[in-house]
């Protein structure tokens, strides 16, 4: 019998990034008791790393913008395998969620007439991202945190959930350890909201921190929920590549949104040479037009650097592979061309001051970690594992999974982004769908009786989690994690092939066997070795999901690029999602499922932005 304390709430939220905080605030405002459990200290979640902005059709900068255009942009970016209902709700409700942040104390950058300023970003037709310099995520999380602490939410910091508990079919609670002492806590609840973020730590080069080990994905999967779209992992085109210690750290898309240009070692602006057919009507014909777009000229179209992330990342990989990369295996990103062009038009333009004001945190990051001044020198950038489009399958309106009482929102849930997420749509997704998860979880908690905790579930989970202390083997958790990251990077990365992924599946079996023998030393108090050992189960689970999803989808779409199937195959894969669930034998099973037909109103919105033509996927 495990020794544990119990905390009981109507709703437990696991994860305190933007989605978890927004869900907790909403649930609490609905009058139920809410516990917020987070792996780190409050306010440190990866939302702080979101730099560019929050996408919402406020139409403050360009009055032609509205939810239908945002919806169409999101669907096009996701290559039409998105959950269209989520994309609709997201586009419709994002403006209200942004305005609400201002009422809670956020201080956004302003337009000359005193409204919330919006900036350009990849895949968005109009300047749409509400932002604060390049530290928007920090503003968002701090605003929610500072609002949330006055709402009567109980916050449990530095607690990691290792298992969800069930009472019959329903969710009933979660078992967590605290980092400080390694003691067990049972969180008893009527409803649980997962908001644990991503899976970036399955890869070697990533913009994600140690926390992003696919916890929510795996917790949900282990209790019978379905995962969807797991093959779609977003590699952000611009991470730092040098020096080695910062490889993978994000360089915001805002750099390109503010006029940044990508060049190969020959100095060629290679993005002009590869513009996909369906984006040609929206892309600038030449440098001059692209720069005018950056300045807000409504007649101009966007520069090719602002094509979607999947495409830009692949172009960079191609340049590097074909020998035209920068010295450390990336390409160059520079602001000088724009500055020179703008300087000619606008006397008294001070490039150094301009960039420090527009991109303060990037300036700081390159100055201190990369030892270079981005106002004067070119940056070296390359793709980095950034965001998981795939995740827990949930109802579009309520965010509830197929397990009664189990909700998910934010990055660990899936549907809204389809095959590729547009920059800026994550922060708005957190707010819109986070709020919905909180609202519906509270509703569910009010409508349903209390649950019972079954101690045998607690005992078996605790026993499993403590086993690594009792083993003697030479399997070091850090080594297993590093080997997994190397393998996923090499075999299931940006460019994928059948035989390599089959090898990855074999590799995963070997790594699972090693993880089953992992040993940790020391005691349970704040022991990173132990924490890493427990995270392995989650990383291995999501890695398997990514791999089998990528094998099944024999086509290239959005973030999934198959070297052996380099084209889109709309007939076979244009109308389906991959669905993963645990089979009766405990093994992972995958199937394809048809996407429901889109209502006419939404088809019209898509067509209006696609030259009057309905994309094949929607026919």
């Amino acid at each position, binding site marked *: 019998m495990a020794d544990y304390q119990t905390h009981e709430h109507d709703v437990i939220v696991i994860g305190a990034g933007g989605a978890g905080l927004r869900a907790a605030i909403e649930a609490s405002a609905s009058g139920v008791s809410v516990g917020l459990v987070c792996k780190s200290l409050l*306010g*440190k979640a990866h939302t*702080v790393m979101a730099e560019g902005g929050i996408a919402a059709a406020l139409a403050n900068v360009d009055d032609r913008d509205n939810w239908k255009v945002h919806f169409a942009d999101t669907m096009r970016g996701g290559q039409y395998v998105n959950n269209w209902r989520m994309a609709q709700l997201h586009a419709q409700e994002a403006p209200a969620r942004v305005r609400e942040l*201002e009422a809670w104390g956020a201080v956004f950058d302003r337009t000359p007439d005193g*409204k919330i300023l919006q900036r350009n970003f990849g895949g968005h037709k109009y300047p749409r991202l509400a932002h604060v310099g390049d530290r928007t995520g920090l503003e968002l999380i*701090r605003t929610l945190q500072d609002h949330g602490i006055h709402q009567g939410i109980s916050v449990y910091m530095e607690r990691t959930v290792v298992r969800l508990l069930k009472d019959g079919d329903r969710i009933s609670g979660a078992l967590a350890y605290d980092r400080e002492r390694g003691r067990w806590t049972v969180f008893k609840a009527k409803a649980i909201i997962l908001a644990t973020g991503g899976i970036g730590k399955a890869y070697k080069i990533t913009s994600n921190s140690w926390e992003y080990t696919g916890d929510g994905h795996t917790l949900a999967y282990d209790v019978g929920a379905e995962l969807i779209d797991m093959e779609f992992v977003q590699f952000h085109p611009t991470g730092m590549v040098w020096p080695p*210690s910062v490889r993978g750290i994000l360089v915001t898309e805002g750099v390109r949104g503010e006029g940044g240009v990508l060049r190969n070692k020959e100095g060629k602006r290679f993005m002009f040479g590869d513009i996909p057919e369906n984006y040609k009507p929206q892309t600038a014909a030449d440098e001059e037009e692209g720069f005018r777009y950056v300045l807000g000229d409504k007649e101009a179209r966007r520069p090719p650097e602002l094509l979607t992330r999947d495409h830009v990342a692949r172009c960079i990989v191609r340049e590097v592979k074909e020998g035209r990369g920068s010295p450390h295996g990336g390409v160059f990103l520079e602001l000088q061309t724009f500055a020179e062009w703008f300087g000619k038009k606008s006397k008294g333009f001070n490039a150094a001051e301009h960039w420090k004001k527009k991109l303060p945190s990037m300036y700081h*990051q390159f100055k201190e970690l990369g030892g270079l001044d981005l106002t004067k020198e070119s940056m070296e950038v390359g793709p980095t594992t950034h965001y998981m489009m795939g995740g827990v399958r949930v109802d579009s309106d309520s965010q509830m999974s197929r397990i009664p009482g189990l909700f998910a929102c934010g990055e660990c849930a899936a549907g809204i982004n389809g095959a590729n997420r547009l920059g800026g749509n994550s922060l708005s997704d957190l707010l819109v769908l986070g709020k919905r998860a909180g609202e519906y979880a509270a509703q569910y908690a009010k409508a349903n009786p209390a649950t019972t905790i079954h101690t045998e579930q607690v005992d078996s989970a605790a026993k499993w989690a403590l086993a690594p202390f009792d083993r003697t083997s030479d399997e070091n958790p850090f080594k297993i994690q590093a080997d997994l990251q190397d393998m996923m990077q090499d075999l299931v990365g940006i460019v994928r092939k059948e035989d390599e992924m089959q090898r990855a599946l074999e590799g995963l079996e070997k790594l699972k066997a090693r993880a089953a023998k992992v040993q940790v030393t020391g005691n349970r108090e704040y022991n990173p070795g132990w924490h890493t050992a427990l995270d392995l189960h989650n990383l291995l689970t999501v890695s398997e999901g990514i791999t089998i999803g990528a094998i099944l989808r024999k086509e290239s779409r959005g973030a999934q690029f198959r070297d052996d199937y380099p084209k889109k195959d709309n007939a076979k894969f244009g109308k389906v999602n991959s669905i993963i669930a645990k089979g009766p034998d405990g093994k992972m099973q995958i199937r394809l499922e048809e996407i429901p037909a889109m209502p006419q109103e939404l088809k019209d919105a898509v067509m209006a932005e696609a030259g009057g033509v309905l994309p094949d996927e929607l026919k």
Partner: protein
Amino acid sequence: MATVTFRVSRGDATKTEFKDYTAETGEGMVVLDALHQIQATQAPDLACRWNCKAGKCGSCSAEINGVPKLMCMTRLDDLPTDAPIIVEPMQAFPKVKDLVTDVSWNYEVKKKIKKFKPRKPDNADGTWKMMQEDADRPQEFRKCIECFLCQDVCHVLRDHHKHDEFIGPRFFVYTAALEMNPLDTEDRISDLKNRDGIGYCNITKCCTKVCPEHITITDNAIIPLKERVVDEFYDPVLKLIQLVFRPRKKESEA
């Protein structure tokens, strides 16, 4: 590649000792990289907090050769490597284990500060008009990543342990961000004087020096707040007027 010795504080609240570890260094490496290397190869139970590894989350605060710093932003090539690099936890907070301290006091302090209270929206759609010049001031303070290095270095907390009477630089910055938000209508001035101990600050600017976000804590946040306290409580002319009219700060402005 060179080998560098790190002298790391190990242990918990009851017992602390320094242990030496070596790490192989490479170009651009920061102290946090070295600690990760030590964790992976020599001391898997070495406790330290970290998240973003890019100076944006404020988790990996520690004292490096006696100076409060973020471990992720401290490059080894900026440190002398002929002697061991000493890494200790922040001293102003109780030790949990190794480099991890109990910073929960900060979270309790923040809860006591009156929350943001905006004036009525200017527009029918619930939005406000705010000019960038007016946003600039609070935006500087809102860059704060809550690393608590300013709290760590402040002698009122570090040496005099006035945690019960003094909220520390971080929360003066927080209060300044609220007070200088053009939409805010709350009054926190008497709290600053009576509860938050702003008078204890004797503007030595140690906090400003260690701030990894380069917020001018003393000049832009603390001194203006001190001035507001003086204006409200110690200005003899105002005192007289207040006796007659009793105007409240923000209402009279609004």
